[in-house]
């Protein structure tokens, strides 16, 4: 790497990629940075990344990318320990950032699941909730998505290496759709697309395939670790889905209670429809 006078890292920063409850897809997004992996390897010291290497070094770390949500009792000391060992902690993906799809358990009875699924449920030690990393320790930056966008991750690393505060865009999917020339699927097909209230990052993949966005990048402008923006207007979009696209309340609950269902602006809306 070229050292600039502003760079906080005089040498290669020590980077850890750590997993909690998750599917590993976001870690794979890092490995999928095929064209950039050599440059990445030259720019950073990958100290801990079990998905990629059995050479697992102990902390402290300059940067930790954290995948997955907190779902088990032993996750709690692990995340506290990692926070203490890490200068810049960045969550990657929906699980780490909002609790993920497994946070649907937050509306259910985990004991009943255990009884139904496992022959010996007494061996299962699981918390009754799945929660975001930021509910337990302070988080410096959040990368949303299921999975994350690998270019966004690369950009955050590039910025950090230059000593620049990463600027993660918070605008919605609609802007990307229009920039790319996709026709709005709400207006032209009557699909309940969450693009207007969902954060950019995916490159508008679903609408580009004629499908409706299901909000895997979390709420647009929702920023828990950066200066506040406007909470997206879920209620107005929900009214449109209900009144003009004829979604019934149970469908409304499912629409807003998805991959990032636990994040407040989505959960408020799904909860409101549950009681209708």
């Amino acid at each position, binding site marked *: *790497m070229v050292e600039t006078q502003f760079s906080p890292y005089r040498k290669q920063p020590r980077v850890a990629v750590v997993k909690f409850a998750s599917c590993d897809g976001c870690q794979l997004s890092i490995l999928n940075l095929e064209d950039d992996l050599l440059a990445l390897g030259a720019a950073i010291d990958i100290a801990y990344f079990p998905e990629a290497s059995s050479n697992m070094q102990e902390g402290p770390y300059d940067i930790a990318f954290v995948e997955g949500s907190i779902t088990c009792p032993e996750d709690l000391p692990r995340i506290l320990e990692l926070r203490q060992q890490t200068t810049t902690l960045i969550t990657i993906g929906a699980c780490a950032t909002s609790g993920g799809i497994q946070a649907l358990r937050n509306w259910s009875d985990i004991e009943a699941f255990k009884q139904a699924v496992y022959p010996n449920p007494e061996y299962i030690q699981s918390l009754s909730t799945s929660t975001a990393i930021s509910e337990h320790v302070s988080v410096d930056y959040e990368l949303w998505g299921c999975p994350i966008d690998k270019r966004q991750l690369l950009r955050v690393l590039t910025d950090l290496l*230059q000593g620049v505060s990463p600027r993660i865009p918070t605008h919605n999917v*609609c*802007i990307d759709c229009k920039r790319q020339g*996709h026709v709005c699927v709400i207006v*032209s097909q009557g699909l309940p697309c969450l693009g207007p209230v969902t954060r950019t990052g995916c490159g508008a993949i679903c609408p580009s395939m004629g499908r409706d966005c299901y909000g895997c990048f979390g709420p647009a402008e929702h920023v828990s670790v950066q200066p506040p*923006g406007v909470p997206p*207007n879920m209620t107005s979009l929900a009214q449109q889905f209900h009144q003009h696209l004829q979604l019934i309340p149970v469908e409304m609950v499912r629409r807003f209670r998805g991959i990032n269902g636990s994040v407040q602006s989505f959960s408020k809306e799904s909860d409101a429809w549950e009681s209708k």
Partner: protein
Amino acid sequence: MNSDSFQAPSPRLFLRKNFLQLFHALKQLGYQILGPVLSQGAIQWKTITAPEDLPIGWNDRQEPGSYRLEQDSHSRFFNIIHGPESLKPLTFTSRETLLVLDRQDHTFSAKEIQPEIKPTAVLGVRACDLAGLAIQDRIFLNDTYPDPYYEQRREHLLLVAVNCTKAHPACFCASMATGPKAQYGFDLCLTEADEDFLIEAGSRKGLQVLEQLTCSLASEERIIQDKERIAACAASQTRRLPTANLPDALYEAHDHPRWDQVAARCLSCSNCTMVCPTCFCHGVEETPSLDFQQSEHTRVWDSCFAPDHGYIHGKNFRPTTKDRYRMWLTHKLASWIDQFGTSGCVGCGRCITWCPVGIDITEEAQALSQPSD
């Protein structure tokens, strides 16, 4: 881009069965041809090579927040009034790389990126699109700082307009005096009937094309008949903007309760600004390479509804949706006039149709120009 001394000859009749001649003539002059093509449940500008590529026999049904295509028994080429795209994406592109910066030791060099632009003929341009383009010309081609990217794309366009003989419910060009008849800025203009087109030239370039086509002189009766069809289209429009008292009324409406009501519906999603033929806001993105040796400097479409638009160092001037909607509407319909000598609205109705929750600019302007209690 008319030359001042151009005298338009009287309109001709051009038979539908000869329409392919227009494609040949344009191709011979070196133009690639774009036209409305069925795409993703709407129409978009795409390359066409023959009349069969046009949405023959299709109609659009537009309402606030809804756009649907339907087939009919006619075989007209231009029965779909418009889709989400005005001419804007063809001149002010959504993404334009301006510079590439290369690092050399302790300094850097900047290489300007010049786009490759082909002469392009656009078939099926509406009066509102031309009016929108004329407004963008004032913005991008002003005397002090003409935008070279816009300028080049603009100069390479040949515009074949189509007069509207029907309106969709969101149209209000008549109240903005921008349509439904194409008044300026076209090279050729068509008025479509069942068997033929009335065709007129609006520029020397257009006349050059027209001279290659098999046409006959149109009768006075036919010219009047088509004028009446266009007038009927204007009369059929139900929406209108209260333009007479608008700038003042909006300036006085700064604290009007209507802003809160519209903000409760508005998603701040930017769709209205993206489909607007005149909205010109853009941001600049800097994308460095991981090894810091190169950086790309790119202009992208932005919107006054986007979170970063009102953000300056440490402060967002327009943090709420109410601030943003008020900013957009007041600029579009009032301060735009102070800034550019014209309204920023051409009455195409796209912001009404393509708003996911169907907010109607005419309804909002009407409410805001009434005093609040």
